[in-house]
C-alpha cells in the first residue's frame, strides 16, 4: 500500500468498551472490557464462535449499538457521547452486512447511489459514480436490474459498492460472505483483497471462518464467548497480494490449526 493511502486512512481506538444488553430477568453481559486499536489502512479481522460478541463489537464501532461503558474513537472523533452518536464520525464509516440488504424497490445503480443521494450529490453524478463502482466490484452490466434478479454473490458485491460509494475511509463488514457458497466466497475474498489494495481503506471484518480470517487479515483478533472478550491476537505477515494457493501452504495451515485448537478450547 502506498504511503499516501496510509496517511489518509484513519484508525479506530477502543478503550474499556463494555456492552450489557437489557433483558427481562437479568442484563446479558455481551462484551467484557475491551481495548483495541485498529491502525490506519489495516485489515483487521474479528474471529470467534457465535455469541462471542464480535458482531456487537462491530455494530458499536459502526454506530448502530451504544456501548454501556468505555470510549470508541473513530478518525479522531469520539463516536458516542452520552448515548448520542457523533454523525461526523459515522460519515467516515461504510458498513456491509451479512445480508446484502439492498432495497428491492431500487435498481442496482440506485441502490449503490443511495448514500450519495443523502449527501445531495446531483443525480447524473451519482449514477456515473455508481457505474464506476459496478466496474470496481465486477457487476458491470447489471446497473438497471432489480436486486432480486441477481445472485447472492452479486448482491453482496452491490452492497460493497454501496458502502464504497461515498468513499468512507473505514469499511466495517459483518460476515459479508457468510451466506455464500465456498467457491463464491473464495472469489469474493480475492475481490475484497483487490478492492482493499486499490482503495487503501481501513477494514474491520467479522467472520467465523478461520480460513477467511487468516487469508484476509493483517491481524486476527480471536474473541472468546460468554462474555465476549479478546482471547488471542495474531499478526499475519504473508506478502500481498495473496493468492488462493497460499491457503495450501504449510505456514498458512499451521496458523489455521493453531487458531482452530484455541477456538475449540474456548467455545
Amino acid at each position, binding site marked *: 500500500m502506498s504511503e499516501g493511502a496510509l496517511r489518509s486512512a484513519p484508525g479506530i481506538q477502543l478503550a474499556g468498551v463494555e456492552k450489557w444488553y437489557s433483558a427481562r430477568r437479568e442484563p446479558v453481559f455481551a462484551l467484557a472490557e475491551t481495548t483495541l486499536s485498529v491502525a490506519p489502512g489495516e485489515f483487521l479481522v474479528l474471529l470467534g464462535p457465535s455469541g462471542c460478541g464480535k458482531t456487537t463489537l462491530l455494530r458499536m464501532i459502526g454506530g448502530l449499538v451504544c456501548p454501556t461503558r468505555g470510549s470508541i474513537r473513530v478518525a479522531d472523533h469520539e463516536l458516542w457521547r452520552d448515548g448520542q452518536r457523533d454523525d461526523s464520525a459515522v460519515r467516515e464509516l461504510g458498513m456491509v452486512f451479512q445480508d446484502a440488504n439492498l432495497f428491492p424497490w431500487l435498481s442496482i445503480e440506485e441502490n449503490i447511489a443511495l448514500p450519495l443521494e*443523502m449527501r445531495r450529490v446531483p443525480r447524473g453524478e451519482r449514477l456515473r459514480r455508481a457505474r464506476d463502482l459496478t466496474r470496481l466490484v465486477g457487476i458491470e452490466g447489471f446497473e438497471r436490474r432489480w436486486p432480486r434478479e441477481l445472485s447472492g454473490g452479486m448482491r453482496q458485491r452491490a452492497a460493497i459498492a454501496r458502502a464504497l460509494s461515498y468513499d468512507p475511509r473505514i469499511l466495517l463488514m459483518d460476515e459479508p460472505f457468510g451466506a455464500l457458497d465456498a467457491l463464491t466466497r473464495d472469489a469474493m475474498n480475492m475481490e475484497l483483497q483487490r478492492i482493499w489494495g486499490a482503495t487503501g481503506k481501513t477494514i474491520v471484518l467479522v467472520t467465523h471462518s478461520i480460513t477467511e480470517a487468516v487469508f484476509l487479515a493483517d491481524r486476527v483478533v480471536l474473541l472468546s464467548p460468554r462474555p465476549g472478550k479478546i482471547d488471542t491476537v495474531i499478526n499475519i505477515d504473508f506478502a500481498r497480494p495473496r493468492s488462493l494457493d497460499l491457503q495450501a501452504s504449510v505456514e498458512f495451515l499451521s496458523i489455521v490449526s493453531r487458531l482452530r485448537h484455541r477456538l475449540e478450547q474456548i467455545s
Partner: protein
Amino acid sequence: MQPPEELRVPSFRAASALPWITTPLLIALVLLAWHFYVSVSKISAFILPSPAAVWAAWKQIIVAAPTWKHTWATVYETLAGFFWASIIGIALGVALGRVRWLEVTLNPFIVATQVIPKVALVPLMIVWFGFGMTSKMVIAAVLAFFPILSNTVLGVKSVDAGHRDVMVSLNASRWMVLRRLELPSSLPYILTGMEVGVVLAIIGAVVGEFLGGDVGLGYLLVARMNAYETDVLFAVIVHMTMVGFMFYFAIGVVRRLLIPWHESVASEKAGS
C-alpha cells in the same frame, strides 16, 4: 450469445389468456341457466325478469342522460371519499407505525370505531352533512379508511430490520428514511388496503344514496324498486358492478406502475 427464445417474456401467454375465454363462457352459462329457469317456471317478471329483459333495460338506461348524472354522482362521492380516506389513512398509519406510544394510546379508539356497524352511522351522517353529496362522501371515506389505515400500520411495522440498519449506518434523515425506506417498503401493504378500501367506498356511497337525496346510483336503484321496474333494477345493478370493476382495475394498474419490483407484480409478469 442470444438467450433461448422461450425465455423472453412474450406479449401473449396461454395462462394469462385463459380468463378471456373462461370468463365469457361462464357468464354465458349462467345467463343460459337464468333464461331457462325464467321461461320454464313462468315466474313473475316483477320477481325475476328474463336476461333479455334486463339487457333491453340496460341498453335503455345507458343511453338515458339521467343515468350518467347518477353515475357521475356516485363515482364522484366514491372517489372523493376514497381520496380522503387514503390521505388520512396513510398519514395516520405511518405515524402509528412509527410511534409506539401513539399507537398504544389511539388503538382502543380506532378499534371502537371499527366495532360500530358503520352503516348505522349513515343516518347520522345525513343529519350532520345533509342530503347532498357531502354526506355520502363522508360515509364512503369512513368505510374505506380502516383497511387503508391498518394495512399502512402493518406495512410500516414490517420494514426489514436490516434495511433500517442500512439507513442508520448511512446517517439518513427522518425524511429520507420515510421517503426511501418506509413508504416504498409499505407500498404493497398500502395498495392492498386501498384495493379493499375502494370497494368499501362504493358501498358507502351507494348505501348513503339509499337513505337520502335524489341523485346517485343508489337513489336510482331505490327509485326503480319503488316503481316495480325490476328489469331496470337489475340493469342498474349490472351497471354498478361495472363501475366497481373499473375502480378495482384502476388500483391494479396503479399497483403495476408503483411496485413493479414486488413479487405480486413480478410473478404476474413472468406468468408463473
